[in-house]
């Protein structure tokens, strides 16, 4: 899915890459121009597919040497059988989707594990802007309220609550700010949340 959030240097890619096992099978949902998938193929020898809806991104991902399948994530992953992948990745796309619960459940159906990254709405500067009476606009959330593709923003606490409801076990989590891991109070100090989950 093209969500316009792709220009923040993708600090999450390094973390994702560290979590993805060498030689595994990967499905990258909303793969954009296929940069991550290409990186995982060359550095981790993964076999994978990218799913992408935008014409220009499909072309770019294909030109990047990836397997890319043009499809609307909102329609589910019916093209894929159960547990066909070691890891299903949804990188900074969740917040732009309509059917959050459905896509998370589909991810853990077709993959043994899922990696989900999203901008943490609980990040202190976001809270400060809201406290000052405005919707947050930042490097990672660059849109105005009226033109943002990000329709389902959440905090890390919100996400963890949803994981509990959907019976997803959190295997790992990292919060990044300016590309660096945050040790203290991630929901307050973390700009970008990265979770590794599986079905409980």
């Amino acid at each position, binding site marked *: 899915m093209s969500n316009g959030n792709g220009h923040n240097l993708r600090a999450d890619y390094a973390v994702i890459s560290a979590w993805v096992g060498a030689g595994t099978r990967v499905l990258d949902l909303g793969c954009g121009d296929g940069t991550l998938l290409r990186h995982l193929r060359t550095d981790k020898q993964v*076999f994978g*597919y990218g799913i992408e809806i935008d*014409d220009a991104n499909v*072309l770019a991902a*294909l*030109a990047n*040497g990836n397997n*890319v399948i043009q499809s609307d994530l909102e329609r589910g992953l019916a093209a894929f059988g159960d547990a066909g992948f070691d890891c299903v990745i949804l990188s900074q796309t969740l917040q732009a989707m309509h059917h959050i619960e459905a896509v998370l459940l589909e991810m853990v159906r077709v993959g043994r594990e899922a990696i989900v990254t999203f901008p943490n709405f609980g990040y202190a500067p976001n809270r400060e802007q809201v406290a000052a009476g405005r919707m947050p606009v930042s490097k990672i959330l660059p849109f105005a309220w009226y033109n943002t593709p990000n329709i389902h923003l959440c905090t890390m606490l919100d996400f963890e609550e949803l994981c509990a409801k959907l019976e997803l076990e959190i295997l790992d989590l990292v919060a990044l700010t300016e590309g660096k891991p945050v040790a203290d109070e991630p929901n307050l100090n973390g700009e970008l949340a990265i979770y590794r989950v599986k079905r409980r």
Partner: protein
Amino acid sequence: MHPPARSPISPKLTGLFLLGQSVNAVLSSIGNVSPRLARFDTPFIFKSGKAIPAFELMYETYGTLNADKSNAVLVCHALNASHHVAGTYNDDPESLGWWDNMVGPGKPLDTNRFFVVGVNNLGGCFGSSGPRHINPATHKPYGADFPVVTVEDWVNAQAQLADHLGIARFAAVMGGSLGAMQALQWAIAYPARVGHALVVASTPKLSAQNIAFNEVARQAIITDPDFHGGHFYEHNVVPARGLRVARMIGHITYLSDDVMAERFGRVLRDGMQFGYGPEFQIESYLRHQGEKFSGYFDANTYLLITKALDYFDPAADYDNSLALAFERAKNVKFLVVSFTTDWRFSPARSREIVTALTANRADVSYAEIDAPHGHDEFLLEDPRYFALVRAYYARIAAEVGA
């Protein structure tokens, strides 16, 4: 010798087409080309069990086969086309090949890099052994006695042509519609002999509705009094009425409802005449297409090709599982392309192919082009579609050093 090139069909399309043409204008056509005939003095045994004692295939090639013979691409034709994929004969612009916009110097399938082979399929009417040829058993044209051909038969014959040309392995096999079925069949039947399959606007099998349209077309031909049970050559007639109707039916399925409405609407040529002449624009369009087609296409070949379409179902031999059928093909790489307004072979049918391939963890990319023109789009110069094919061939070229 050649089917006429398709022309633009709507004002909107004309714009698109011209835009594409202007892009391609700097890229020349391959220029004048010549067909060649390959003769095989061994019997060809069809899937039906029937055989012919020897056969010929008409083909053309463009570009140069490289030293390690790794840059060959086979382009398979659909219903009415032929070996004449690109270029012209004797500078005649009317003789432009049927996929000249796709194949040529600097074009998506670049003949500066690849050695491209086009072949008229067995049972065809553009020079390869077919119903018009003399049956050595009777010394008369085969007519209706030419064995019913299948996609498997075509691909087996194409493999013999590849042997003849010294091509052990195609870098790619490409086709649209029925041509794409041949690319799929290549991947299943000869997985070691094909690197990539480019499958455009196709389906893993015909639906009952698809077969129904074919059957109406066949009945139009078979019930034409000039058909003479398929032996009309001896009577020096052709079942032109049947062919016309068959072609008209085909054309309805090639176009989207929207494009037909846009181009023809309910426009009357000359008001209501309260008769059965060609009054609506769409009527005269279909009659014109039918008339043109009946002038160059063979009725028996049309029947054979529609049967090949109907019978194609690679999953049938694998417990009706397309995924099982593709197990053999999982080392072939695929590009699958569909068009949103194609209701003849809709995107859902291409997605079946993609699903069966991903189940085998085959390398596959899939694009669903949002384009207005229906099934015919695969022959048109849609910039997104052409850019994808171009990018995909760049990958193949890098692989094979073309």
